[in-house]
């Protein structure tokens, strides 16, 4: 384990609570308590699955993630084959080995080949009682929005039939408010990272984010409010050589960020489906649309995954982030066999270069903690960034 580059190392008690949850995942005390009350827990596989709909049905939605470290994936390889991304294989292996046996349902989207085959193979071999996959269009046109809304409505109906309940507009609004609050609090946390001396590291932020999709949102919001209070009251700051952004495939291992930050490259923002792409853009509830329309609109319009067309929508938002957070260099980490991000990489590097922002491209496996080789490359990248000043 590497140390964070803290120069003013004040303990954050709220952060410890998030860490406890992450260390216990998937069978956290909160999930087990929820189950003990006779309530259901659903796993979702991709950020294009509207969590609010699950939440509004009284179900605890948790994100299916893989092992928090690089592992031998014998079962994952056997069931999904070696050339699917290690995120899918890692998630599936945990499912096959019963680590998600508390799930009452699994919901996926047709987002990328890896995600949809993870869903297919999960459904075939793991007998989770409820399964649903949403067609997710790749465009942002009105027609695409109509199609996606239709999909979300069908999903809601499927859920209602499975549970024998009605999910009301009022429940959807309440869930949306809870989730919007989480988004607003996370935005506040990220705003602190825009400061000249951010009080929180990238690795610490990732602990917060991991917990955000592994516990009841109401409880998460209360913990995060405490963390923000603690940060406001502290004089934490971190020594750094350069302000960095991490982009690319799904990644939620704080150890990877720690390895970068151990070289004093402070990760001040990111473009990952486990972080900024998860929380950015609230659901806009207004009198013009039903809550379900508002939810579906947000999910399709949200900060895009590399699967979406045109790719410039994503590239522009990456560039905006870089500008807002005064990013000096970008680290792209792409899991082997992650096709959408691998295809985008040459174009993204060009776009960033045109803005004067250099990119370090790393090929990784899901769960990697940042090996010696990665540290060496980060070190060289930081030296290059320093030399540019």
């Amino acid at each position: 384990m590497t140390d964070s580059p803290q120069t003013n190392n004040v303990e954050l008690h709220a952060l410890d609570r998030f860490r406890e949850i992450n260390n216990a995942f998937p069978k956290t005390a909160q999930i087990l308590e929820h189950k003990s009350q006779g309530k259901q827990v659903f796993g979702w596989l991709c950020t294009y699955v509207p969590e609010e709909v699950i939440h509004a049905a009284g179900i605890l939605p948790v994100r299916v993630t893989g092992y928090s470290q690089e592992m031998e994936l014998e079962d994952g390889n056997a069931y999904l084959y070696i050339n699917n991304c290690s995120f899918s294989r890692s998630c599936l292996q945990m499912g096959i080995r019963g680590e998600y046996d508390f799930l009452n349902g699994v919901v996926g989207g047709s987002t990328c080949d890896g995600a949809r085959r993870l869903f297919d193979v999960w459904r075939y071999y793991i007998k989770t009682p409820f399964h649903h996959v949403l067609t997710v269009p790749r465009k942002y046109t009105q027609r695409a929005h109509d199609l996606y809304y239709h999909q979300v409505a069908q999903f809601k109906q499927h859920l209602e039939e499975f549970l024998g309940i009605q999910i009301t507009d009022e429940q959807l609004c309440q869930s949306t408010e809870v989730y919007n609050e989480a988004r607003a609090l996370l935005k506040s946390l990220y705003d602190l990272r825009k400061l000249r001396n951010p009080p929180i590291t990238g690795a610490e932020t990732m602990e917060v984010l991991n917990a955000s999709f592994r516990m009841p949102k109401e409880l998460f919001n209360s913990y995060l409010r405490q963390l923000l209070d603690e940060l406001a009251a502290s004089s934490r700051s971190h020594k750094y050589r350069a302000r960095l952004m991490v982009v690319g495939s799904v990644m939620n291992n704080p150890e990877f960020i720690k390895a970068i930050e151990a070289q004093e490259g402070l990760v001040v923002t990111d473009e990952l489906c486990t972080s900024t792409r998860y929380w950015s853009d609230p659901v806009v509830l207004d009198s013009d649309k039903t809550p379900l329309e508002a939810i579906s609109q947000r999910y399709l319009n949200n900060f895009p995954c590399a699967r979406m067309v045109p790719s410039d929508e994503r590239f522009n938002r990456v560039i905006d982030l870089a500008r807002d957070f005064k990013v000096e260099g970008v680290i792209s980490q792409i899991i082997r066999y992650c096709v959408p991000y691998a295809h985008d990489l040459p174009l993204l590097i060009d776009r960033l270069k045109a803005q004067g922002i250099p990119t370090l491209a790393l090929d990784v496996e899901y769960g990697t903690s940042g090996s010696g080789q990665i540290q060496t490359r980060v070190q060289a990248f930081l030296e290059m960034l320093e030399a540019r000043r």
Partner: protein
Amino acid sequence: MIGSEEKKSRIKTIVRACRLIARMSKGRPEVLESHRIYYQMLADYYDRLLNAQEEGEFVAAHTIFFPVEILYAMDIVPMHTELTAWMTALFSGSYADLLSTSAEVGLAPEICSPYRVLTGALAAGCLPRPNVMLWSNLICDNSAKGGEPVMDMSGCSGFFLDCPFQQTDYENRYLKEELEDMIYFLEKQSGRKMNWDKLSDNIAQSDRQIELYRKINELRQTVPSPFPPQDFLKLFTVDCFFAGQPEATNYLETFHQELLETIRDGRGMASPERFRVMSIGMPPVLLLGAIEKVSLEYGAVSVADPFFCNWGEGRLDPQKPLDSVMKKISMHPVMVMYGPLDERLLDMLINCAKQHKIDGTINYAHVGCKQGAATIKIVKDVLNEIDVPMLILDCDIIDTTIAPEEEIREKLRQFFELLEDR
């Protein structure tokens, strides 16, 4: 960037090679007439592409499984991006160079090799510059990501055809409207109007062609198999290049007749035919000859290629051309791999194995195909239930360094020996 003459020379190589094969096939009784027709068609396709710009024609590049009937109805010259890059690599012997160029551009080696060759060919300036790029998510992430690099490198505009994941009525309506928008885009870009009568004619031809694909596939159930195992690739590419065109119908009718005659004469591809093999996925195209040779040593013949030859049920209606374009997309053999994995795929494979009297299956696990590879265990388990063993052959469609010829030969030998032991 190389000059337009250099670009032309790569396409000229394809034209010359195809013409040569067609010419050498003529009048030789041991070579099927369909073989000559096929290569003549290819030569004509690339000849038209070669001269398109000079003759003021409008060129639309498009990715795989694209409804070219629409382009032909608008008198637009199609350029199949993956297959053209692939043919350029094969006929000019430059696949290694093009893969290397794609790596220089920054494309990861895990990306499906036809797309890496495409990027390499674009970066090297080996492909003609299209007027527009048309691409879709049929049938994987690679095709969905395959259009923008072409637009970026060629400086042309493009249209992405968003094909929904499932085939409900709602999603079919979505696809139909996407097709209408694409036609509008093409009309605007090319200044040509859609000729709906011509599209209807093309659909009528496609309907006949699908009927012939089915009949040809049915003849492969005959023992011994009359079907030259490598010709599945011709059937596949004929649809990719020439769907809805009379010359494709002519090719298929000729081929069908040839197969009937072979059956009538009691001839088969292997003598004696000992093992009937089902091939899943695309074999390494440079090693097709080697695979056939080692198979025949054991009396093994590939008699089924379900993902290329098993067209779904239904007919096309020339009176409803756009609905028929959609219908055809849904009927394409490879579409069982799209959408949620369900009984469609598994039942199709079981039925195929039974109807074609399969002794063993070879699953060509192309390293670039994630969605195909992810079904390997399910397919193996399902085929085990009907006592059909399956060889999983790790390979790459184009890049022979992933699985060299000798390695593939050896694995095939071991598999055929296993079949002998059974």
